[in-house]
C-alpha cells in the first residue's frame, strides 16, 4: 500500500475525524487490527484459490474500518454478533488468527473444531456470538443478548452487524421494534457497502439513507463514513455509551465498500459494478487513510509502519502454519455437539 501526500490526506479526512484527538496507543491499535484483517483476508483468498478453504468465503477487504472502529469502543464483556462476512469482526474482538485460519481450513484446531467454517465463526471466550449464513439471522439473536443483559442487571452492550441486504429482511424490523420498545442495550450497525450481493442499494431499498429508518422505530439513527476508522469509533462510541447508560438502542449506518466481490465465487464483482467505481473507492482505503493521518501528525514513521505490517504478515503466516499442521477432525466429531 502507498501513502498519499500530506495535502491529499488532509483533504480526504472528514471533519469529525480531523478534529478527533490522535492518541498514539489508540491509533496504533486501530491500524494494527485493520492491517491484521487485511493481511488475513488476502491470505484467506490465496488459500481458497489453492483449495485449502472450501465452500463460501466472504472477505472484508476494504471494510476494515467499520468493524475495527466499532469494536474498539467495547469492553471485553460486551457482545458482538455478525453475519457471514465476519472474519474481521471476530479478529477485531480479539479472536486468535490461528484458530480462525484453522477453522477456515476445516481442522480440529479451529475455533469450532472445523465444524462451522467461514460463515460460522464463534468465540465464547471473547463474547463473539457468531457467524451465520442466513442474511439477517443474527439480528434477533443479538437483540436477545441485549434482552439478557437487562434481565441480568448488567451494563454490557451488544453490537449487531449486518449488511444493506439484511435491512430488507423482516427480522430487521421486528428486532429494532423490540429493542426500542424494551429499551435494549443494542447497537445495530448496518455496514452499507452499497450492494446486496450483486444488487445495488437503489434496487433493494425504497429509502436508501438506511439510518433514517431508525425514526420508524423511535430510536436514534446516524450515518458515518465507514472508511474512516476514527469517525466510526467516535460515532459508535457515543452509541455504546447511550446504550450502556441510558438503555437506548441506536441504528448506525456505516457507509463503506468492499474492494473485492461478494464472495470468492464472485471475485471480480465486475458484472454489477464498474472498475471506475471500485478504483474511486480504493482511494479511500481505510488503512491508508489512517496511516496518512498518523504520519502527518508524527505518530508513526514509515519504518514503524513497515515493522507493523511485517509483524502482521508474520502473524498471518503463523496462522497458516498452525492451520496446515492441525489435523482434520476425527470422524467421531461428526456426531458430537448435536445433543448436550
Amino acid at each position, binding site marked *: 500500500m502507498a501513502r498519499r501526500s500530506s495535502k491529499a490526506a488532509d483533504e480526504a479526512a472528514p471533519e469529525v475525524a480531523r478534529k478527533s484527538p490522535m492518541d498514539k496507543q489508540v491509533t496504533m491499535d486501530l491500524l494494527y487490527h485493520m492491517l491484521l484483517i487485511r493481511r488475513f483476508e488476502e491470505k484467506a483468498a490465496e488459500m481458497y484459490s489453492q483449495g485449502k478453504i472450501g465452500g463460501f468465503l466472504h472477505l472484508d477487504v476494504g471494510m476494515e474500518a467499520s468493524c475495527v472502529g466499532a469494536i474498539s469502543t467495547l469492553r471485553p464483556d460486551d457482545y458482538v454478533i455478525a453475519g457471514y462476512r465476519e472474519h474481521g469482526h471476530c479478529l477485531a474482538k480479539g479472536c486468535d488468527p490461528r484458530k480462525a485460519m484453522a477453522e477456515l481450513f476445516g481442522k480440529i484446531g479451529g475455533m469450532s473444531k472445523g*465444524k462451522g467454517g467461514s460463515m460460522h465463526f464463534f468465540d*465464547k471466550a471473547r463474547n463473539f456470538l457468531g*457467524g451465520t449464513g442466513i442474511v439477517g439471522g443474527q439480528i434477533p439473536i443479538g437483540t*436477545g443478548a441485549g*434482552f439478557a443483559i437487562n*434481565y*441480568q442487571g448488567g451494563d454490557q452492550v451488544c453490537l449487531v452487524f449486518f449488511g444493506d441486504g439484511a435491512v430488507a429482511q423482516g427480522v430487521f424490523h421486528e428486532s429494532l*421494534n423490540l429493542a426500542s420498545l424494551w429499551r435494549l442495550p443494542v447497537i445495530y450497525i448496518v455496514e452499507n457497502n452499497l450492494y446486496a450481493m450483486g444488487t445495488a442499494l437503489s434496487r433493494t431499498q425504497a429509502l436508501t439513507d438506511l439510518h433514517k429508518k431508525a425514526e420508524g422505530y423511535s430510536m436514534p439513527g446516524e450515518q458515518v463514513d465507514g472508511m474512516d476508522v476514527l469517525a466510526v469509533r467516535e460515532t459508535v462510541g457515543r452509541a455504546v455509551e447511550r446504550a450502556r447508560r441510558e438503555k437506548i438502542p441506536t441504528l448506525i449506518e456505516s457507509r463503506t465498500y468492499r474492494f473485492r466481490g461478494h464472495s470468492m465465487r464472485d471475485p471480480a464483482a465486475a458484472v454489477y459494478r464498474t472498475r471506475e467505481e471500485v478504483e474511486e473507492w480504493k482511494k479511500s482505503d481505510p488503512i491508508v487513510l489512517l496511516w496518512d493521518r498518523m504520519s502527518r501528525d508524527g505518530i508513526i514513521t514509515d519504518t514503524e509502519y513497515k515493522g507493523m505490517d511485517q509483524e502482521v504478515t508474520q502473524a498471518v503466516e503463523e496462522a497458516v502454519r498452525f492451520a496446515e499442521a492441525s489435523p482434520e477432525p476425527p470422524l467421531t466429531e461428526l456426531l458430537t455437539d448435536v445433543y448436550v
Partner: protein
Amino acid sequence: MAIITYREALNQALREEMRRDPRVFLMGEEVGIYQGAYKVSQGLLEEFGPRRVIDTPISEAGFVGAGVGAAMVGLRPVVELMTFNFALVAIDQIVNHAAKILYMSGGQFKVPMVIRGPGGFAVQVAAQHSQSMESYFYHVPGLVVVRPSTPKDAKGLLKSAIRDDNPVVFIESETLYGIKGEVPDEEYTIPLGVADVKREGADVTVVAWMGMLHRSLQAAEELEKQGISVEVVDPRTLRPMDKGTILASVRKTHRAVVVEAGAGFAGLGAEIATIISEEAFDYLDSQVVRVTGANAPMPYARNLEKAKTPDVAAIIAGIKRALAI
C-alpha cells in the same frame, strides 16, 4: 396424587421451574396480562412480574430469535407460540439457528430454550391452525421434540425440557388442555427420550401420541370386549425416539400399528414402521399398519374435519388389519 387438568399441569411446571431457577423466563404473545391465549400461563405475571413474564408483539421470528440469543448468553427462555402453526414464521430461527449453533460453534454455545405451544387439530379452526407441526422438527438433528399426551406427562416433561440444555420443541394440544389426570403431589420430572407403555397388552402394539393416543386407548377398551389385548405405547419424546420400548413391545406382540393425526405421507408413522421392520422384522407376523390423517389440508366443514383425522373406528379397523381379522 391430585387430579388436575393438562393446562394446570403445564402451569405448575412453569411455576415450579421459574421458582427454582431465576434464569427461566416466559415470553410470547398474550402470556402476561391476557393470562395466556389458552390460559396455560394464568397467574404467572402476578407471581413473577413483567421482567420474567413478557408479552411480545406479533413478531415470531423476532422473539424466537431473541430467545436464541438470550439462551446463548446464559438465560433459559421458555418461548410460547400461540399455536405451533406459527412456528413456520420463525422456522429459520428454530432450525437454522437454535438447532445448529451448538454444532457450528464446535460445542461452545448451548441453546437451552424451550419453544412451546399447542399443535395439531382443534375444532373447525381450519387448514392453517390445525397442523401436526412436529413433522417439521423431528427431522432436524439438534432439536429435541416432545409431545406430552397426559397431564402427568405434560408436567414432568416440561420440567425436564426446561432443565435440558438443548433446544426443545414442546408441542401441546388445544384439545387436551382440559383433560384431567393424576399428577403426583411431590416434585417429579419425566426424562426426555423415554417412551411409556400406557396400556399393557399381548396381541398387538399400537404406537400413538396426543389425541390419537386417547382414541387408541378407547379402541383398546372396545377390543378388550372382543377378546383382543392391545398394548399401547406412547413415545412421549418424538426426537430422540425411544425405539427400545417400541421394539420390546413388538417382539412381545408380533404385530404393530402406528396411529398419527397428521397426513400420512412421510409422517412419523413411516419412520416408526421402518424402524420396526428394520430391527424386529423376524418378530412380525404381519406388516406394520399405519392409520393416519388424510393427505389434505384440514377443511373447515365439521363433517370433513372429522373425516380427515382417524377416529376410534378407523383405529379399530387398523388394528384388525394388523391381526388379519
